[in-house]
């Protein structure tokens, strides 16, 4: 089975500061990795994904994430956050070539302050 741990339930940060949201996963098989964002009262929007290839992936809204296989991590970063980045961020894993369930982390609420 797979599992996902998001170490921080809440991250407060000032506008224009850098941010890192941490995600660690556990899996005995190869996985794809994803970050989704959920704005208040909205659905899940894909930020970025790692399927294969370069371990540094870039997504929408200036976010990027780095896949580290040895540390089983997929941390999300942004060099300079905006007020509009205030949302909840979910890390998810899915088994490679198996179109079944995603396992989600418990989410990290990013609160960007002016």
């Amino acid at each position, binding site marked *: 089975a797979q599992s996902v741990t998001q170490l921080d339930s809440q991250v407060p940060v000032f506008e224009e500061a850098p941010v890192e949201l941490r995600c660690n996963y556990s899996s005995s098989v190869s996985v794809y990795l994803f970050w989704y964002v959920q704005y208040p009262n909205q659905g899940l929007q*894909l930020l970025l994904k790692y*399927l294969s290839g370069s371990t540094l992936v870039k997504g929408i809204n200036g976010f990027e994430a780095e896949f580290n296989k040895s540390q089983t991590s997929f941390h999300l970063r942004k060099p300079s956050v905006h007020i509009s980045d205030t949302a909840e961020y979910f890390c998810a894993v899915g088994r490679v070539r198996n179109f*079944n369930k995603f*396992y989600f982390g*418990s989410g990290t609420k990013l609160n960007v302050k002016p």
Partner: protein
Amino acid sequence: EPEVTQTPSHQVTQMGQEVILRCVPISNHLYFYWYRQILGQKVEFLVSFYNNEISEKSEIFDDQFSVERPDGSNFTLKIRSTKLEDSAMYFCASSGGSTGSGEQYFGPGTRLTVT
């Protein structure tokens, strides 16, 4: 850009009543899913559906739940006799077109409130 749609956006029902949540997946996708998110908790997998049958389901997906693809475009989740603890946001997702990469596209969700 194609997207997954869900109706209704909010459903209020009384305990014991049947509800049907509707989803229209992306048209060339072959795999369909339902997830739920109880308020303040993580998103949990309920069921996956492929080739007109359930491919995997979680322990949450008991006999009170069923899924159907009645007409080739809609994908529905039925809860036969709702309980208070079924109150949650329910997300539909689809993936896997002809060159599927495993990425799941989520709908905006249906908030189910059981009173």
